[in-house]
Structures are given as structure tokens and as C-alpha cells.
């Protein structure tokens, strides 16, 4: 896959190297579940509320819970101010992230209820959608919501003909292709798949496998964050 092993990226990384990452859970006292991810310069927080009663009543679903999901970027999260009003991009991403999380949550255990997932990107530095999903799934687990599996995302890009793992902001702007994916790592299911730019079938296969590798690394960080939270709760009780 990584033929040009000597290729060095704009931030000094090797092609198959992730940026430093850290996931924390239980960061908000009021939410039923919460998580934070730092991935390179990305800083994203997620709060989960619910399952709770659905309003308005006329639109509830009688056989399962409704999942609401909002991906939102703060105006100060980018170097040029972003209008706080949800852009078309943010609306599309909210939709694909919702589909990804919906696949994992056992929604049919909570008929007539709502689960709200609020994703706030406080600082953006490329690959925010997949980092958001990774953190959102940890926040859902923190809220004690039953799930079939965790959901974890990662991206691969192509820049100067080279495939690179965990696309940074510069690579996103100048690269030739971008492939964000999200998977359920234990069930081995793809739940988010988008592509931008141009890739041959051969490149796509390599890119996909590289993205899986990155996702599995982040999955370990998800588990670690949840284990830490469990330990904390054993020691101090639920401090939320």
C-alpha cells in the first residue's frame, strides 16, 4: 500500500500515520452522555440527551425511538469565520452521521422516545465528520444507550499521488481525493461512506483498507476512554 515509504506529509507524518488523538468521556454534567475527541487540531465535543419523551407528539414513531443528530461547527472553529447558521454541508453531514449511528443503536427498545445527539466542532482541522462519529458513539455508550456495536470513523486522502491516512486540513484543501468512512468494527459493517475527487478502483481498495486500519486504532482509544470512565465511576460514583 505505502509504496513511497519515504513520503513525508506537510505536518511531518508518514503516509499511514494518524495524528495524535485523545478521547475523553463524561465531560458534561447535564447531558445523559458526553464525549470529547482531540485529533490533531480537531476539538469536538458531543452531548447525548435521552432516551426522552418525543415532541411534538404527532411525529413520534410508535415502533422505535427517533434519533436526532446535529453536526455543527462553531463560528470560531475555522480560520475564516463560519456563519453560525447551519450550512448545506453541515445539514448533509448531520444526515449521514445520523444514518451511521442509527445502524448501531437499538432504537426499537425505546418506542415513542427521542435520542438527541449534539455534535459541536469547536476547532476544525480536517476529517471532522469521522472524528465526530467516533466521539458520538462514545457519548452514546456513556449515556448507557444499548448498541449493537460502537461506530468509529477514519478518512484517507490522496495527495501528490500518495494515499494518506487521517486527512489533515491542508491535505483536504489541496488533495486529489478524500474518502471518509465509518464502520461498526466488530460487526464489520460500513455505515458511512462518501468520496470526493478521483480514485481508480485499485487506489480505492488500498485507500479503504488503510482507512480500516486507522479506524481500528481509534476504536482502541474509544474502549480506553470508556474503561477509564468505568474506573472513575467505581472509585467516585457517577460524578455527573
Amino acid at each position: 500500500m505505502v509504496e513511497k515509504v519515504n513520503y513525508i506529509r506537510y505536518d511531518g507524518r508518514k503516509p499511514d500515520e494518524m495524528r495524535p488523538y485523545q478521547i475523553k468521556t463524561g465531560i458534561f454534567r447535564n447531558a445523559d452522555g458526553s464525549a470529547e475527541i482531540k485529533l490533531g487540531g480537531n476539538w469536538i465535543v458531543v452531548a447525548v440527551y435521552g432516551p426522552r419523551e418525543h415532541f411534538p407528539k404527532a411525529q413520534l414513531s410508535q415502533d422505535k425511538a427517533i434519533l436526532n443528530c446535529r453536526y455543527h461547527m462553531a463560528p470560531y472553529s475555522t480560520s475564516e469565520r463560519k456563519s453560525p447558521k447551519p450550512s448545506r454541508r453541515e445539514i448533509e453531514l448531520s444526515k449521514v452521521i445520523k444514518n451511521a449511528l442509527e445502524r448501531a443503536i437499538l432504537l426499537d427498545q425505546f418506542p415513542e422516545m427521542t435520542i438527541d445527539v449534539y455534535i459541536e466542532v469547536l476547532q476544525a482541522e480536517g476529517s471532522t465528520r469521522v472524528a465526530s462519529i467516533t466521539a458520538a458513539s462514545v457519548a452514546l455508550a456513556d449515556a448507557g444507550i444499548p448498541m449493537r456495536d460502537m461506530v468509529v470513523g477514519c478518512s484517507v486522502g490522496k495527495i501528490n499521488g500518495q494515499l494518506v491516512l487521517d486527512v489533515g486540513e491542508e491535505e483536504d484543501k489541496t488533495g486529489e481525493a478524500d474518502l471518509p468512512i465509518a464502520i461498526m468494527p466488530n460487526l464489520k459493517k460500513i455505515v458511512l461512506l462518501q468520496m470526493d475527487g478521483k480514485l481508480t478502483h485499485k487506489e480505492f481498495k488500498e485507500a479503504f483498507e488503510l482507512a480500516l486500519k486507522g479506524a481500528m486504532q481509534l476504536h482502541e482509544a474509544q474502549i480506553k476512554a470508556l474503561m477509564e470512565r468505568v474506573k472513575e465511576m467505581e472509585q467516585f460514583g457517577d460524578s455527573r
Partner: protein
Amino acid sequence: MMRGFKRGTLIDILRVKEVKKLIHDNRRVGDRDFLDFRDITIKTNVVKKAYGSAYVSIGDTIAIAGVHFDIGTPFADSPDKGILISEGEVLPTASFYVEPGPPTEEEIELSRIIDRGIRGSGMIDLSKMVIVPGEKVLKVFIDFNILNDDGNLVDAASLAAVAALLTSNYPDPDKLLNVESAEELSTVDRIPLPIEDIPITITTAVIDGKYLVDPSLPEEVAADAILSITHTKNDEICAMQLLNGELDYNQLFDILDIALEKSREIRNYVLSHINKR
């Protein structure tokens, strides 16, 4: 008025059941082959007022697209390129579930998939849309609408947008130095649009582990996953979107092969069925 219904939630539950039952017996509604499209019609230059236009039907799904131009300022990061804007809506004529109003998340997703296919393939040579570099360029608008919804809106809208562009002319940028408004623009001599590629989008649904190209609305409702893939004329992938559901890893690669083969077939069909300007 039926308000608050989502796409597919009220469509004939029996049709969805029929779809699932048939597929279980390795059959499809209307005895259509799993890898076959419904009948496609393409009519170009249907709206004379636009610079280019197309009307496409795939089965009972109908899409229409029109091309327009205006004068604008280029983006700071691409001073030597024109601007491409493609947007679309599902019109209230399309089905009982559609209400007039701001675009839904599904409509925004649809628009952005079509946009990525056209942009990613480099279909239009935007460097030939420049009047004064860094100051004055042409803006290309591709507006599309769904007039009737029986599933596979992505392929229908994408085909309409591509066919409209293929038969579109544009105002000669060399004659636009003193032109400032869209009104003046419409009187300038037109030349053929610089077309570099023909991106073709193929949507495949997975139901019961089987692959169905060009899903109808009840098939979409019954689907475990729906994946749209756009290919260039050189067989590269230039856009991809998992519209719904979940996929096994091997299913992704099966669908990639199907989409590539079908894209070649549909591209040939498009080329032989559009009226050259």
C-alpha cells in the same frame, strides 16, 4: 393535506412486502433483471429559454435540469477558474409526502452528490470560463428538479444534469469584457460548452444480500443499504455516497464492479440518445 409524512413511510406497505417476497424468490417486480434499469428516456433542449436543458425519466421517476450562466467574481483560491453551482429540489408535484418549503436534508444530500460527480470528474473545463483572471468569470448554474418520485432520484437527477450540460452552449468569454449583467449575457454569441468527461452515477440497493440496480421507491424502502457511485469515462470513481443502511466490506467491492460496468453501458446510451446541438 397530508402533513408530516416522510418519504416512504406511507407508501403502500403491500408494495414493500411484495418486493421482499419476490426478491426472496429471486425475482423482481415486473420481472426486471436485478442488474437492469427501468426504461430510460432522455429528451434534450426541452426548455428553449435555458442555455441547455434535459428531461429524463427512469420508469416513473422524472427529473428535469436546466443550465444558466451569469457573471461573477472568482473565488480567491481559484482566480483562473469559473464557478460551478449545481442545486436541486424535489418539487411538490413529485409525491404526496413533499411539502413546499426550505430544502430537506435528503434534498441537500441529493444536490451535493450531483455536484460532487460533476465537479470531481472535471466534466466542464472551468478554466475556459474566465473573462479577466482574478476579477471576472462566468458562473455556471445547473438547476435540477424531481417532478415525480418513484425511487432512484440520484441517478435520474444526475443524468438530467449531465444531459443538460452535454447539449448546452455558453456565451463566448472573449466577447464578454464589457458585459456586466445576465440580461446582456443572453444576447452574446454562444459556443459549445467545453466538455471533458461524462460522469455517470449508478445507484444499487442491497436487499436480502442481493444487489438491485436502479431501485424503485418500494425497493428503496425495503433496502438494507443503498449506495450511489459515480464513474468517469476513464473508469475512475469520482463520487460515492452510502445513502442509507449498512454494507459488508465484500458487498462494497461487488457493488463497485456492478456500478463500473453499468456506468459504461449508461454512458453509451446517453451518447446515442442525446440530440447533438
